[in-house]
């Protein structure tokens, strides 16, 4: 297995390099110069030319790339055009909020999605199954922003059960336990909206996996042994069906980050997605590119982890 993991790690090296190159190309294509971002806009004119020299804006492309990578590795993504905010700091401030949201959605997807899939498969072709199938299809088919708006309309505006946006009630000035409950209260709707598509995919995937496995020879063996249905489903079928679900762990990360863009902007959730949307409106290319690079790296790491997890849970790879 050490071999498998090291091989997997080796394969990610060209990928991470590719990610940075692609990011760099996109940046070079965008208006303005990426390296110009590194110049603190508040400095005066004489220093500007010095900075340009120091940053090597006149260097050949590959040198520029290496210098840019050097900055990025140190966490320096440059400054925003408007004001002289460090992009790295801006993102860092927002990262925890996005992590709270995506992690909740991530957990919700599997905690809800897997049981739905299992029930659908076990009760195949019953009303419950049709209901779950239809619901998951709607879940995959509904535009997330539309679902978000609907949820706000119904639960926040019509019923008033949940807040329509934001992460905390600043005016109330909660502290301690109440503060966390307040965040949780704000979290419910965005987490639901963000996870819906993923819940649907996970349950569809689990169901079809489960159905395939219930047709396997070893399930027939288990039946021939006179095991009770519970043992057949949970001990023999589910263990096999859940192994490939691990791969969805990795796949759902980019999905959730994409979703966070929309969800955060609809719910005014102060995360990276919302930052990104503002950046689009303000044409802050530096922020967009930094977000791109960071999320791509996170996704790569997520895929790596889920592949390794796969090797751990599947004895056929483990040995």
């Amino acid at each position: 297995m050490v071999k498998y993991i090291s091989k997997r790690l080796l394969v990610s090296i060209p990928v991470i390099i590719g990610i940075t190159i692609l990011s760099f190309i996109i940046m070079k294509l965008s208006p303005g110069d990426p390296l110009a971002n590194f110049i603190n806009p508040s400095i005066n004119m004489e220093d500007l030319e010095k900075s340009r020299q120091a940053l090597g804006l006149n260097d050949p492309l590959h040198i520029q790339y290496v210098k840019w990578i050097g900055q990025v590795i140190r966490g320096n993504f440059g400054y925003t055009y408007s004001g002289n905010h460090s992009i790295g700091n801006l993102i860092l401030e927002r990262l925890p909020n996005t992590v709270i949201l995506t992690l909740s959605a991530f957990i919700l997807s599997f905690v809800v999605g897997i049981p739905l899939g299992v029930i659908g498969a076990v009760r195949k072709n019953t009303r419950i199954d049709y209901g779950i199938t239809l619901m998951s299809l709607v879940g995959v088919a509904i535009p997330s922003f539309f679902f978000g708006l609907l949820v706000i309309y119904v639960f926040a505006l019509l019923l008033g059960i949940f807040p329509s946006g934001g992460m905390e009630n600043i005016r109330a000035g909660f502290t301690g336990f109440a503060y966390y409950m307040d965040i949780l209260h704000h979290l419910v709707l965005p987490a639901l909206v963000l996870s819906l598509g993923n819940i649907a995919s996970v349950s569809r995937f689990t169901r079809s996996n489960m159905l395939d496995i219930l047709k396997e020879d070893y399930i027939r063996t288990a039946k021939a042994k006179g095991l009770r249905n519970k043992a057949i489903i949970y001990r023999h079928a589910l263990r096999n069906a859940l192994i490939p679900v691990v791969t969805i762990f990795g796949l759902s990360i980019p999905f959730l980050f994409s979703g966070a863009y929309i969800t955060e902007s609809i719910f005014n959730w102060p995360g990276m997605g919302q930052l990104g949307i503002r950046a689009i409106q303000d044409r802050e290319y530096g922020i967009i590119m930094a977000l791109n690079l960071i999320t791509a790296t996170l996704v790569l790491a997520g895929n790596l982890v889920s592949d390794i997890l796969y090797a751990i849970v599947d004895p056929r790879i483990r040995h």
Partner: protein
Amino acid sequence: MLIKKNSFYDYAYRRFRRNKLAVIGTFITLAFVLVALVAPVLAPYEPSEFFFIEGQNVYNKYASPSMEHLLGTDSLGRDVFSRLLYGARVTMLVALSAVIISTVIGTIIGLVSGYFGKFLDAFFMRIVDIVISFPVLFLLISISTIMDPSIWIVILAIGLVSWTSTARLVRGEVLRVKELDYIVAANACGSSSLKIIVKHILPNILAPIMVQVTIGTAQAILMEASLSFLGVGVQQPTPSWGNMLMDAQKLLVLRDMPWIWIPPGMVTLLLVLAIYFVGDGLRDAFDPKQ
């Protein structure tokens, strides 16, 4: 059907026809296509025609549904119903063109990767790894912010971002089919690689590609809608179901004028759902296990 008499497609067609959801989905999808084609006939007004409050030089903004404006008017006093009909054209155009791009790229790369293997395979699969590491929306946004947004850029962006799943699928199918005896047999009777790919491999992996095209269309519709909603997709005044929902980000519109944002949202949901029904139906119909 366009395929000559061959039991595989015959069986698949019969199975598909027995699947109620799939048939309903097909009809809904066809109805949408029809509406898109004849939108100019059905629409009472031009999509970007502004209406004024009678006798005044003021836009008739946010008018409630009436006989005159079936679904009311939007923030600029345009007829929502007409925009909805024309929006169908934009949606179809974008989704279908993008899917053609992604299917062509994905199929070629998948075939080459799977059939020739070795360096080409490693090379293309790393590219796929790189592309899928970027969340789709991020890449789309990057592409459409760099270029001046236009429908063609949106099509190109969606096409360039979504070929990866087709490529992976085709590659996997090629790897599976390649090992079958009839490919080895074709090799043994001296057929060239091109002939083997075109005559032996492609016809036998067409079914999953067709499913992927269907699902891909649905996903392209969702991507276009999201982009347009975020303001980096199809631009005003061209109507798109996504950009018609932009107004709903204003609390006032969201709370008090559901006629502006619910219809475009619902039609998107309905069309995507219908296409998914078709896709699932095709998948089940093609599945030899059933």
